């Protein structure tokens, strides 16, 4: 059985990140896009934890904790915006959200 090397973590993290980016780019439901963003953030977290363990420095783990905090706050604000939008427009389709045009 091969030992788990940083390369494995890197591959997993990259895969998660790619899945997240593709989700953000392609999906139309804003909830799904939101979840994809969480995937991206967690891909970064995996990277941070993996290198922290590898190097033997706890700073990476502390950073990951911060990312999780920010993600939680972001989730609260984002879901609030989505709810407000839904109340006005009766939809969560990202194509309808073109208010920031000229």
């Amino acid at each position: 059985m091969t030992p788990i090397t940083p390369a494995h973590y890197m591959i997993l993290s990259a895969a998660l990140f790619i899945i997240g980016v593709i989700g953000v780019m392609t999906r139309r439901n804003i909830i799904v896009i939101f979840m994809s963003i969480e995937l991206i953030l967690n891909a970064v977290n995996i990277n941070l934890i993996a290198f922290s363990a590898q190097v033997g420095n706890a700073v990476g783990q502390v950073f990951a904790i911060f990312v999780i905090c920010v993600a939680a706050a972001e989730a609260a604000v984002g879901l609030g915006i989505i709810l407000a939008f839904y109340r006005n427009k009766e939809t969560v389709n990202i194509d309808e959200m073109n208010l920031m045009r000229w």
Partner: protein
Amino acid sequence: MDLIWLIPLLPGAGAAVNGLAGIRYFSRRTAGLVACSTMAAALALSAWAFVQLLGLPPEARVHDVVLFDWIPATPLRLADGSIGALHVPWKFRLDPLSAMMILVVTGIGFLIHVYSTSYMSDEPRGGVARYFAYLNLFCFFMLTLVLGANYLVMFVGWEGVGLCSYLLIGYWYEKKSAADAGKKAFITNRVGDFGFLLGVFLIFVTFGSFDFREVAAAAAAWPVEASQFGTISLITILLFVGATGKSAQIPLYVWLPDAMEGPTPVSALIHAATMVTAGVYMVGRNAVLFSHAPMTMEVVAIVGVLTALMAASIGLVQTDIKRVLAYSTVSQLGYMFVAMGVGAFAAGAFHLMTHAFFKALLFLCSGAVIHAMAGEQNMLKMGGLKKYMPVTYATMMVGTLAIAGIPPLSGFFSKDEILYRSFLSNKVIWGLAAFAALMTAFYMFRLMSLTFFGAYRGRAWEVAGHHGAVAEAAGHGARHAADPFAHGKAHQVGHEVSHGPADSVQTAHGADPHGHGGHGAWHGPHEAPRPMTFALVVLAIGAVLAGFVGIPTALGGGNAIEHFLEPSFAAPAVHAASAVGGHGEAAPVAETQAAAGLASAEPTGAGAEQAEAAGHAAAGVAHLSRGAEIGLMAFSVLVGLVGILVAWRIYVRRPEISERLAARFAAPHRVLTNKYYVDELYDATVIRGTMGSADGLWTFDRNVVDGAVNGSGWLTIFSSWLSHLLDKYIVDGLVNLVGSVLQESSFVFRRFQTGLIQNYALLMLFGVFAFVSVYLLVW
């Protein structure tokens, strides 16, 4: 005498009380009482002052009272370049002439006030107070006029009486003819006043003073302008223009007959006895100036005699009782100016006084007749009134004989004096004046005949038996319906009746306690009530006695009034320091005499002597023999008698003659009836001319002045429109251009901003890939 300032002020106070409070609060009786009591007090004061004046020696009979400084001293440049002082105190002066005038004004004024209390008793309550306020105000101004010691105080009175005349002529202002007559009187007077004012200005720049005595003293030093028309002649002509306006002489006499639209007592007081004599008084006041201008004197005499003739001839054919008297007044005023013009100033003033008595009397009698006839003024509708109103008949006969110049009534003495003096001066003027006297006697007796003699020609009246209240009311109503000449109608037609609707109501209620007084229901001609007959009788006594103060020397009298008045017409000896000096040696001489405390009436200085000489020269030969004088008197009495007899023959004995005469001389009769078409002439020339030029000015105003204003307005609008175009298309255009350029050019770039987050994220992703690729592949 120090109280003379109260004499004008008392009626002034009466006017203020009646005018401010009386119109609203006073009863007819109270208003009349206030007005009469002020006049009575003024009369008493005047009489007292007169007695005091008589107590002084003749040369000291001048008393000045300064009330206050009206215009404080101000330096002013005079005509000859020297600097004079314009200083006008509000000063009253009592001298023989003004003493006579205040007695006439307050005496006759008082009687007319008393008469008015009865005559105006049918007016509404406020109207009576208004009437008395005007009448008192008139007396205030008239007394100011005659007491004023300088031209400006006199001018205040002069204008004030004109105003009151206007107010009183237009007293029944609802009646258009009365309002028009008031305007006519006022405007005609304004023409004369303009001349008067110019004369006063010229007096000041010439003599440097407004005071009568100072001016007279200064003028006495001037040479008599016998050959050339100089400054004094110009001054006197201008003053005379003022006198023609106020005293109704040719060419400004036209207002006086129309002024008969006013109440009859007003005609008696203002348009017969007092105001119209103001012009005569003013000429007399300036006797020194006038005697220095023989040319003006000639003009005065000629205008006077022409006016006397013309007015008397018009009076021959008038049928309105008051108009006959009005033309008679104009004619008699002409007489007074004849006297002034021939230098007989005292005779003119004497005639002024006697005329005031008998003409006021005649007017008041005519008022009583009109009152009795319930407003009828047409003499052809009267006749036979002698038996209905004996007092009025008797007193009017006295007045008629007085004006006709029958001795020993007052008119004889004064008229004869004028005729005598004009005979000395100019035989032609004497002849014309005597002819006017003939006509006077004729038309006055015609008036008497038509009014009091013969058969009654008026409308029928309600006979007795209608005195019951109900019957009265019924008869009243029925008569109104049936008789077009009924009283209420007569009011509209414009006869002088003063009974308002309140009167009819009263009558309809049967509340007519007086047997005679019901003008709403007329019971035929009747004698006037007591206050009216009282005034008539007193005036009749005055008309009889007034002449005795001036019995000529030829008849054994002393001609007291002439001696009394003479100082007022001579140059006074006040020192001429404040007047213009440097005219001969007159000033120093006068000063010496003044220093000696001698206010002598004798001529002083070379110039004054000259003037005196000229006065005598103008009178031609000094005197006629006594026999000739008596012959002249007999002639003038004869003239009067002839006039009376002719009128008697024509109008009483054989009334049909007058119609035959009128038919035979149709053309002259028509000219006379139409008053020589003078009103028409003035209408065609002066009035049309004024209206035409006013129209022209209005057209100019409308087209040129308004055109200029409108043009500038239009120009402003046009230029602002241009500015608006500039703003809109050039300034705004530039701003919009910038905007639209930016807008159009931004069209391409706008495409990138879809508003879809995913697009942006995709682009970011591509950018990251690009950067990473560049990093990995190139470096």
